[in-house]
């Protein structure tokens, strides 16, 4: 898949530093220009940026930031959407829009921590298994298969339930299920890259195994990883929200989107805004990461 991206990072093809021969357009400018040609990817990028802004500055943007916690305002309970409360109010009178905005931080935090952990565990394992192979590789990939033998949601639910649900547990549980996908991806890619000439060249020049694995093979995985990470952020958000919905994830009164959907359930179909808007937030966020991921896929694939 990624046969030729190596050129840039490998010592034999490099030589860019040696002389002022080539005038290189910075890679990010090509990226922006290419991505800009695909309207759907731009929509995805827009959504992702919006969610990031909400996740970072949410409490300052939300019209009623105090409503994110366990406040009560019975005078305004179950109000339908209005100019004052765009998304209506919930059963104790909290502003749903504010809770949805502040909730972006929880979802993004879960996704960010899970992905970082999963990459840090999965990628080295995948590369090591592919590069050294033999019994070590065999054992590592067998362990990987065992983790893959159970659907992520069920596994995560079981771990979260047995440990007692909370934010750190949710992150740990999802990461424990998720590293396997990165290990598998890194393994598959590294198997191909291992056969490339520049790896052989490094071997001949006497570079050690660890050095080759992490300075020759790893950099060539980045484009595949970037796409996978982008897509997976969306799926981790979905999974985290499902946990919250079942009461086995983040706990109330935190404004987690899945919990909010569950809390609105008893008020359906009359107070439809309680379930509709938090669910919509999840939906739009996941679509955003999906569109961006697909765009990046075309972009990085096109470089080949």
């Amino acid at each position, binding site marked *: 898949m990624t046969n030729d991206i190596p050129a840039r990072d490998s010592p034999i093809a490099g030589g860019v530093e040696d002389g002022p021969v080539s005038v290189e357009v910075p890679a990010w400018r090509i990226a922006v220009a290419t991505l800009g040609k695909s309207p759907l990817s731009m929509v995805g990028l827009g959504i992702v940026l919006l969610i990031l802004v909400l996740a970072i500055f949410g409490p300052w943007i939300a019209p009623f930031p105090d409503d994110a916690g366990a406040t009560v305002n019975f005078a305004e309970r179950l109000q339908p959407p209005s100019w004052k409360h765009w998304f209506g109010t919930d059963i104790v009178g909290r502003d749903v829009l504010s809770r949805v905005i502040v909730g972006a931080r929880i979802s993004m935090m879960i996704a960010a921590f899970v992905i970082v952990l999963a990459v840090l565990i999965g990628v080295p394992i995948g590369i090591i298994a592919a590069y050294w192979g033999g019994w070590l590789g065999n054992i590592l990939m*067998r*362990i990987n*298969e*065992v*983790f893959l*033998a*159970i*659907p*992520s*949601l*069920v*596994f995560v*639910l*079981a*771990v*979260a*339930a*047995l*440990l*007692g649900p909370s934010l750190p547990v949710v992150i740990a549980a999802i990461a424990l299920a998720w590293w396997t996908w990165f290990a598998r991806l890194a393994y598959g890619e590294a198997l191909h890259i291992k056969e490339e000439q520049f790896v052989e060249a490094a071997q001949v020049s006497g570079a050690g195994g660890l050095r080759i694995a992490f300075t020759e093979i790893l950099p060539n995985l980045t484009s595949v990883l970037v796409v996978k990470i982008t897509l997976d952020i*969306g799926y981790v958000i*979905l999974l985290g*929200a*499902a946990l919250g*919905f*079942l*009461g*086995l994830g983040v706990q109330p009164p935190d404004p987690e989107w*899945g919990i909010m*959907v*569950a809390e609105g*359930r008893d008020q*359906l*179909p009359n107070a*439809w805004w309680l*379930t*509709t808007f938090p*669910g919509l937030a*999840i*939906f739009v966020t*996941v*679509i955003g990461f*999906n*569109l961006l991921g697909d765009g990046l896929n075309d972009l990085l694939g096109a470089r080949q």
Partner: protein
Amino acid sequence: MRFIFRRMIELAVVMFGLSVLIFVISRVLPGDPVRFALGPQATEEQIAQLSREMGLDQPLVVQYWRLIKGLFQGDLGVSLTTFRPIAGDLATFLPASLELALFSMSLAILVGVPLGVMTAVHRNSSRDYIGRAVAFSGVAIPVFWFALLVQALLSFQWRIFPPLGRIDADVRPPPHVTGSFLIDSLLVFDIGLFFHVLSFLILPAVVLAASPMAMILRLLRASMIDEMGKDYVLTARANGMPRNLLIHKYVLRNAFSATLTIIGLLFGFFIGGAFIVETVFSWPGIGRYGVRALQFKDFNAIIAVTLLVGLAYAAANTVVAVLYGWLDPRLRLGRR
């Protein structure tokens, strides 16, 4: 045959690993399920006694051995919330889950495959864009949210479908033959009952099918387009082979074998989705049972359900691998 045999061995190895994994997680992680099961009023002696009855005071290796021995004897222990044998409970709930799963999976394939072919053949037409929009939404939509909205609108608001359960409380289920109410009601020629049962099945099945359907559509579209760009397609068309024959007999078959590898993974999403859908629609299946066990920290039941789900998932993947070998004979030889 040797191919199938090898897959079976692999299945056994993975299941062994899974049982160790689940066992370790359930025993080594902190938290005291016995204390939880007996409630806050339990005395220390009661807790100690129940722990002893369940063999929790034994060394871990002995406990694991007991678990495995029990599995082979069909004894999965006792639920910590209902104090009934778990194996019996699972046997009661399994048919409902199987019925929902098989019906829903057929739906996903019957809709997803034609849509995948259509969007690939009419690439970049308006049909393609609509199909892809559906696919994007299907993958990104939170199952629990979709389920609630559909239930609120079609059941509570417009009263087209019953909102909860598998059959009305005052209706007698058909005599048990296969365990599927749909099939069993047909076996006794009770058409009224058939449609009654179907009306309960439709909503959960459609909601559950949405995401796998979308994934099938996306994958099949991608591999069809890939396949249609290959030389043999060009040659066949240049030689005047009818387009329909070419697409349906050759391109689809090749594209489908590529899609099939991933359909195995799809079962994973599917089972996870079933846990949520069954909970929302009160479908009396393994998923709802599992969610309850999880919420009440009934760890005997959690272990049993997790192993059953793992087995179902692994078995489904084995079937896919065998099918794949049948579609693509190259794989039967040589490496896996």
